């Protein structure tokens, strides 16, 4: 098991290294003269040269890469190209915090509901309940977040004034209650995306396990139905679900670009869209690296969790 963990950590490092190369490479092919783009048409040659020197854009590419990666590892993430050249790291970290809050809220809402729906659908396979859940989840899983998001804003939020419509950009601050209010709509929207996915996976997992002979063994031991289901079936059936939940954490942290845009929520995704539009290189690289790190971390967590919960892997 410990060797497994070491192996996975090594793999994580390799993945990060490879993706950092990809990201660095991609951001280098930005067409046009970046300093010119940033400083504008009127900037003089000297200003441009200063800009290049300041951000190290004159060095050969490998040097730039090593400098950037080295800086990144040691915590110096460079400065933003935007006016005032603020340091990238505090900005990204702040947004990361917001994204994590949103992710947590989403998980709190979506996980119990979707597992419950999935289990119910499986236990009453082919009943009206199953069909209803299946059609609902198929419909919801396919809707782009901006559709569900706008539906929520315009449908529900207008009706329930007390939720408070976060129509203007707002950094959630103040009381706990405030936090919950401003988080609820975005996390509900994210829930819609996760819900169908997790519910269907859970349903498939439970159905799969129900067919296995050990369920018959448990029943023929005389165990009550709820013990057969909760102790024997779910213990195994939820393994893939748990993996997927862990994986979705990665998506929740960096992938909620659209939802953050819809709600003007100041998360990492919204910052990334801005960085892309402003061609803010260092900022973009930092965000992408952070996002990928969490994505990879979520992958790792999913694998480890699976291994820990599954004696067949744990005891290899």
């Amino acid at each position, binding site marked *: 098991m410990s060797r497994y963990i070491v192996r996975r950590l090594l793999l994580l490092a390799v993945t990060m290294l490879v993706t950092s190369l990809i990201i660095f490479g*991609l951001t280098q092919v930005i067409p046009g003269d970046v300093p010119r783009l940033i400083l504008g048409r009127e900037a003089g040659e000297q200003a441009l040269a200063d800009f290049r020197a300041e951000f190290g854009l004159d060095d050969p590419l490998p040097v730039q890469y090593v400098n950037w990666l080295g800086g990144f590892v040691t915590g110096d993430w460079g400065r933003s190209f935007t006016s005032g050249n603020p340091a990238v790291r505090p900005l990204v970290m702040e947004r990361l915090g917001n994204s994590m809050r949103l992710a947590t809220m989403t998980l709190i809402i979506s996980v119990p509901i979707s597992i419950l729906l999935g289990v119910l659908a499986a236990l009453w396979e082919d009943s009206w309940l199953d069909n209803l859940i299946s059609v609902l989840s198929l419909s919801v899983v*396919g809707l782009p977040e*901006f559709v569900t998001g*706008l539906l929520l804003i315009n449908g529900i939020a207008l009706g329930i004034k007390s939720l408070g419509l976060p129509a203007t950009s707002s950094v959630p601050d103040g009381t706990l209650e405030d936090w919950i209010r401003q988080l609820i709509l975005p996390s509900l929207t994210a829930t819609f995306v996760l819900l169908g996915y997790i519910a*269907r996976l859970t349903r498939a997992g439970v159905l*799969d396990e129900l067919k296995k002979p050990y369920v018959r063994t448990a029943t023929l031991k005389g165990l009550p139905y709820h013990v057969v289901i909760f102790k024997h079936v779910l213990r195994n059936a939820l393994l893939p679900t748990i993996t997927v939940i862990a994986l979705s954490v990665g998506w929740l942290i960096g*992938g909620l670009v659209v939802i953050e845009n819809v709600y003007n929520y100041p998360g990492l995704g919204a910052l990334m869209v801005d960085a892309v539009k402003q061609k803010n290189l260092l900022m973009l690289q930092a965000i992408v690296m952070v*996002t*990928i790190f969490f994505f990879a971390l979520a992958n790792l967590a999913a694998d480890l969790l699976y291994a820990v919960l599954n004696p067949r892997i744990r005891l290899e």
Partner: protein
Amino acid sequence: MSTLRSGVESKRASRPFYVRALLAVVSFFRRLARHPVSLVGTLLVIAFVLLALFGPNIAPHRFDDLIRGAARQSPSLEFPFGTDRLGRDIFSRVLWGAREIIAIPGIATAISVFLGTCVGLFVGYYGGWIDELISRALDSLLSIPALVLALVMLGTIGPSPVGIIIVIVLLYMPIVTRVIRSATLNIRNSGFIEAAKLRGESLPYILFGEILPSVLPALTVEAALRFSYAIFLTASLGFLGLGVQPPSPDWGRMVSESRANYARTPWELWFPAGAIASLVIGVNLMADGLRRIFRYEGQF
């Protein structure tokens, strides 16, 4: 293994090809019809494809026609979906927009499925270090979240239909490869594959003649799913302003732009959003129907 073959079908083996093809299509819809929701989904998709083909021909206006004195009209007989603040007919814009929202994901899906199938069949069958190398490479591509890769790519090479297609192919080709690879792994040690080896068959014949038919169910379901995700992604990119650029009518961008006017012209948002929703749901229901027909339990 799918149960595509029934006792009756073999006796028809001698009929001409087109008759058999027709019978296959009829039987396909019959199977679909057993689950009405899937049938509805499939018909919805067919309707949208027809719209994409003929939409501009039947649209009453061009997408950029500014109809004089008809700004901000609510839906009526003349303007079924209403008009926007510039007096453009939303119905026409939605019809014109259907082509891109179907063509871009469609082409991208086709390329992803084609490449993914070839690579998946090859590495799944061949195995060994090639498989390990390619699988690792694809894994690292997959370790980048979809939207992040899309943003970075489109932010750098600039938003264009080709750019979006490249992004989708980069994102989905590895997934298709994975699915086909694992389906291939399941049968690569079957007796019929080994028998083919023992009669000295070539690699292409084994891949496409022996293995491909067996992975076709997985492939079909996967293609439908990828199509649905590709539409999703294309629409989202349009919404973020990174899709097809103006003035061409992109459903996602239409939704995004209509937000500011929601209070006065809510129909500007309803119809493009509704179109996206029904298209994506249709594709999903169809994919689900295909999965039922093929009894294929894959990822979704």
